[in-house]
């Protein structure tokens, strides 16, 4: 731990280092547990899909799919990727999304929906970013129209 004398000025670099450390020390639990376990994952996934299906930017992509199934699979995926006791058993990302001809803007519209869903679930921005950091590399598999 760091201790600063009362009244001493904390250098900025140290303040930022402390901010970084505080994000690292909470790593004892899995992100899955920190975010609230399976029930939270299911609510976040369901809300993400509902918001997306109502978003004019990407609503078309959800018109012909069974939303309940997509929500279930997304919750499983969130659970597995955050270190929870699940195994995603849905379709592989690449062939699933290829026919949709998705762009980066489409991908980000879904990210924004997930961020809003997590805000509504009172997930801290710090934890939100940890999930987004795990999801971000999926961009390579999902976005085919560049």
């Amino acid at each position, binding site marked *: 731990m760091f201790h600063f004398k009362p009244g001493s000025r904390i250098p900025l670099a140290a303040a930022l280092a402390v*901010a970084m450390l505080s994000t*690292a020390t909470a790593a004892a639990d899995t992100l899955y547990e920190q975010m609230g376990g399976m029930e939270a994952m299911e609510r976040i996934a369901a809300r993400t899909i509902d918001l997306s299906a109502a978003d004019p930017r990407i609503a078309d992509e959800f018109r012909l799919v069974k939303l309940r199934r997509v929500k279930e699979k997304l919750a499983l995926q969130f659970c597995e990727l955050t270190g929870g006791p699940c195994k995603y058993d849905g379709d592989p990302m690449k062939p699933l999304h290829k026919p949709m001809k998705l*762009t980066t803007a489409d991908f*980000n519209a879904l990210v924004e929906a997930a961020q809003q869903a997590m805000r509504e679930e009172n997930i801290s921005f710090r934890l939100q*970013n940890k999930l987004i950091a795990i999801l971000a590399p999926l961009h390579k598999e999902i976005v085919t129209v560049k």
Partner: protein
Amino acid sequence: MCLNHSWRMSFLSKSLFFALVVSTCSVVFEAGAAAAPIKDRQESIWDQGKLIATGGVTQIEGAGGSGLTTWALITGYGTERGIGVNAHHTFVALDDFKLNSTGVAVGFFDRLELSATRQWFDTGTAGARLGLGEDFTFGQDIWGAKLRLLGDAIYAQNSWMPQVAVGVQYKNADKEAVLEALGAARADDLDFYVTATKAVLKHSLIITTTARLTRANQFGLLGFGSADTARSLQFEGSLAYMLRRNLILGADYRSKPDNLAFADEGDAAALYLAYFPNKNFSVTFAAVDLGDIALQGKQRGFYVSLQAGF
């Protein structure tokens, strides 16, 4: 018109955009029709498709970045299929000087950024002390181009490879005779830089380091070089912490050359808070220390930058 339709095109044909906007639009329109898209969703060239705050703000010379540091991110919210435009005004109040900076920057397809900025550096009462006359105002125009070369700062979170860009800034300062009298070798020059940026999302950080080849005196406001000064390698570093989706706390450090014989020039630092209420608007507040300027001692103060874009 052609700015709001479904289109599919390669990077090569995107490049045509710069050369011939009108004809590119018609080419694109035909290509889109011929490809018989599976869906007929409307796609705008002004797609605003990036995540909020990932376009950064505008740095002091008008490029995409933070207060003092040039970032490798391309300004604006256009994705690789869109164009983003930003206008900014920055006001810096120092102990003895005031700096105003106004400019426009355009990001093309998350690949190329072009910027134009005008700066006014008001010497206030220091102008009288320096024998220039009160409120004597130096100024310069800065034309910038930045090309993203490789890497991905945002999506490649499973890799340490940063996004890397190279850039050039042409700076053309006013008051050539005065600059020469102060000892500067010339009133216009080129800065070259290479910059690397990485968002480390799991720690909510955006990290940038930039190497700049320059002989600018006080960013170019006091001309370039002295009797026989070559460009030297200078460093810019930025550490930004995302407090919230739309709020960034950051720190910048920037080294500067010390060419002029009449006065020492020191390094610059800034501590800033950038707020992004939406993708069309942002405001940055900063505490700055620009180091010694023109015999007037350390110049500390604050910085406000407003940015609007589409």
